């Protein structure tokens, strides 16, 4: 029982999470606590805590009406709506496709699987500015993928021209194939999907890999069909990991700046994300307004992370409770 409780906590969440297990520590024999802890606290407070405290300090200097006026500005509200909306859509897309990708990488061997598995980590390793650059050149209307219909029509006409038929298709005959991303915020969603892609895959993968297939065989022998097994046996097991992957992807997308500003139109009130609003205010030397937006963004993203983690904790607890 007590062992079960210990296994239900952090260690189960990921392979590396196993590590957070208390061992017998002979703290009295190992030296260096004052030195290492002192240095850790010094470095941490000097470079992270004091700067963050400066932001809180500056916020405290704002009057309430000034704060409210800044945050309630329609342009700022629109930027928050875009940030959270696009992040939510990107997280959901990643939730669906990440689950499929994780399943295929664990359960369905195909040629090149190892290569694709290694590629999953690219969004972690690739600088965000590079991601924004390459996505905006690909997915905007004049890019390879963005202008797919126009490109295909063009090449068909080219071949036809060589064969002496003249123009077969009008230039916009295949325009339904082109992604109309230039004047919408779909580009923001696309690049946020890239940024959050590894989170769901990498949290679900270890759970699927450690999954004992005995349960599926048992369910099969009891007469359950494949769909029932998927919904009633496998998905509940994956759910907590999947949810935490989703939360991580969402949280990362909210703070994302480098990749989005390359692909978004950055029109105030239409296609500006909240971090860009902060930068704009800073460039105009309106520090108090930037601080107000920053505090709201920070608080909201921490709140959402906390909420989803609470939900996940509840799901896990509920599940182990039902199993007992």
């Amino acid at each position, binding site marked *: 029982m007590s062992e079960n409780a210990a296994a239900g906590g*952090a260690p189960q969440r*990921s392979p590396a999470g196993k590590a957070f297990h208390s061992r017998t520590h002979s*703290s009295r024999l190992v030296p260096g606590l004052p030195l290492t802890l002192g240095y*850790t606290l010094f470095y941490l407070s000097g470079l992270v805590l004091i700067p963050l405290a400066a932001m809180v300090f500056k916020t405290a200097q704002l009057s309430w009406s000034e704060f409210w006026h800044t945050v309630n500005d329609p342009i700022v509200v629109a930027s928050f709506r875009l940030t959270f909306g696009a992040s939510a859509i990107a997280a959901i897309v990643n939730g669906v496709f990440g689950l499929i990708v994780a399943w295929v990488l664990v359960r369905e061997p195909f040629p090149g699987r190892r290569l694709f598995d290694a590629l999953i980590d690219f969004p*972690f390793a690739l600088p965000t500015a590079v991601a924004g650059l*390459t996505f905006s050149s690909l997915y905007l209307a004049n890019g390879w993928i963005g202008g797919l219909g126009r490109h295909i029509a063009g090449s068909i006409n080219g071949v036809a021209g060589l064969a002496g038929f003249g123009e077969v298709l009008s230039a916009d005959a295949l325009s339904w194939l082109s992604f109309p991303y230039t004047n919408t915020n779909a580009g923001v969603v696309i690049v946020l*999907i890239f940024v959050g892609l590894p989170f769901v895959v990498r949290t679900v993968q270890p759970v699927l890999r450690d999954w004992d*297939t005995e349960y599926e065989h048992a369910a099969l022998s009891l007469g359950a069909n494949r769909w029932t097994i998927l919904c009633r046996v496998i998905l509940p097991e994956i759910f907590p990991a999947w949810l935490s992957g989703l939360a991580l992807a969402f949280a990362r997308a*909210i703070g994302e700046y480098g990749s989005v500003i390359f692909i978004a139109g950055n029109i105030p009130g239409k296609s500006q994300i909240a971090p860009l609003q902060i930068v704009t205010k800073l460039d105009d030397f309106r520090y108090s307004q930037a601080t107000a937006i920053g505090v709201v963004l920070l608080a909201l993203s921490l709140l959402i992370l906390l909420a989803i983690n609470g939900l996940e904790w509840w799901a896990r607890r509920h599940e182990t409770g*039902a199993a007992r």
Partner: protein
Amino acid sequence: MAGAPANAVAAAAPGTPAPATHPFVRRILVATTVAFLTLFIVIPVANVFAQALSKGVDAYVRVLHVARPPEGARLNPAERRKLAAERDQAEKTWSSIRLTAAIAAIVVPLNVVFGLAAAWSVTKFRFKGRSLLVALIDLPFSVSPVIAGLVFVLLLGRNGVFGPWVGNWTWPDPFSLHWRGFALDWWPLEFTRSFTGVIFTPLAIALASIFVTFPFVARSLIPLMDTQGSGEEVAALSLGASGWRTFLKVTLPNVKWALLYGVILCSARAFGEFGAVSVVSGHIDSNDTMPLRIEKLWNEYNNQAAFTVASLLTLLAVVTLIIQMIVERNTGRNVIAAVEGEETMR
């Protein structure tokens, strides 16, 4: 029961092979995966190199280096202007590469020392507030890069909390160190340039980079050192080894792969950080790191040059992934996912 499959015992002894998926469903799933990853990862990464080399290898090299015209070559004024502009651009690109490397050279060693100290104190000892400390080490991961830059502006900027103290502080630019000779004084070196204040200087860029790369080394060390416990260290210490010797001969060899990986991840991020650096750089040309240079070239509609700089950073990312694969083979765990993905997991 539901919790059981995830624990290590079940994983170590996999039972019968999994029931096969229906072939048709299987084909759809594999096709979806391949299409999704191709659209979102393979094509964008390949596109970086394709665009960088779109005007040929010569143009690629010219972004980084423009040769002087040969002696006695006759250039008309237009050609001379074009050449001068190109040389100017190449010099700016080089200065961004130098600055980025210098920032990484400052940031990475500092974070390595911190990571080792933090991992040692957190894993070898149990004390009150330990889990709070681990949470605080993770904090920079959940802060938007722009906010990471913003806090330094609010702390050190003109109207910042410490603004009045650091605003008038003048310090020499290390890159401007020149050999002056002994003619004037006994000291032969001198700085020819200096900075005033902290914000909008390379020092602020270094601070912001430290902030965003803060957790990487500590994060890659803590789980491993916690699993290993302190049994080996205790054995060495009880045999009479000193604390330092124990650390160097026992602990360090045990965590070398994780440390290497933390360093790689930390330097990849230090090279690639955009948001935080962009805020504290003040859009000054001499403060451009490689990602900021990419943005400027892109805004100047010089796509091929932007992609050339981007291709260098992409190569760095490829190297990161290769080292990650080697480390994974050596340690049996995916370090990058463990470090990046565990932002909130404790």
